[in-house]
């Protein structure tokens, strides 16, 4: 059931946040391969290049992207037959209720607010990896 490598697409324009998450992921779960893109255009290019082979098992999506709002990216992902089944977890610095509710309304799998410090990132990554990699079954068998 578990497929290696576990590929995660990180859509994040902030270098510091992306590097922090990637470093913590490397430490907590080195088997998870983080592919990072900086915005919507790059994300869909990357997803299109994967379509035929290995789509990511999980997408982490920032909301404030330079080329498109994260909610537009979410809406596109959740209405495309090729990617609709891939869980999208929003990871944003916003804790505004309107952002949270809108994300779930557009079928975000879950909403995470960016932690303030390294310890917070560590705890968050550990919980997320445990849930998605060790507990939940993902729709991956077709590509084994």
């Amino acid at each position, binding site marked *: 059931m578990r497929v290696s490598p576990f590929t995660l697409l990180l859509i994040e324009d902030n270098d510091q946040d992306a590097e922090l998450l990637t470093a913590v992921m490397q430490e907590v779960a080195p088997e998870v391969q983080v592919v990072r893109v900086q915005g919507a255009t790059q994300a869909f290019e990357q997803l299109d290049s994967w379509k035929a082979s290995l789509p990511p098992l999980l997408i982490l999506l920032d909301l404030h992207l330079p080329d498109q709002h994260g909610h537009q990216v979410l809406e596109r992902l959740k209405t495309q037959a090729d990617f*609709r089944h891939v869980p999208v977890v929003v990871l944003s610095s916003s804790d505004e209720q309107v952002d949270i509710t809108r994300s779930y309304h557009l079928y975000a799998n879950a909403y995470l607010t960016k932690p303030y410090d390294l310890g917070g990132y560590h705890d968050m990554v550990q*919980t997320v990896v445990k849930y998605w990699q060790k507990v939940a079954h993902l729709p991956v068998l077709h590509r084994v």
Partner: protein
Amino acid sequence: MNEEGSLCYVIYMKDPVFTLMLIDDEPADVELFRDACQEHAPGVQVEYAAHGQDALDLLEEGKRATPVRLPALILLDLNMPVMTGHQFLERIKHDPVLRTIPVVILSTSEAMDDIRQAYRNYAGGYLVKPSTIPELYQLVEAVIDYWRETVALPPLK
């Protein structure tokens, strides 16, 4: 100013309950799950529904209540009488109010068709019912760690 501050504090402290709705027609599974929650998820209140239609009735009632009474998370079995889990998931994810509630599948089925269909209909995860009690405890812990302790859930209103 001080009074308002303490009022907010009281309201926050009065509602630390996390309500989870378990939709499952198998009494033995429900009982195991209830025990697991009692031991490993204190403060989690579990509400039950026997099948999809039963759950929809409860949710409609909760939607109309003042204040609104909806679960923070739904755990959903697939094979049930009257309305299957897949039918329930499709219904709830098209409801303008209820669609924001995360619905996690908890089923004995490991069929890839079930897994794919669940995620295509925006399941919040697909969990296979564990065959041993320690595994069930681990699953409950991981679910609560993720959905209660880590994720920001939509306000229920």
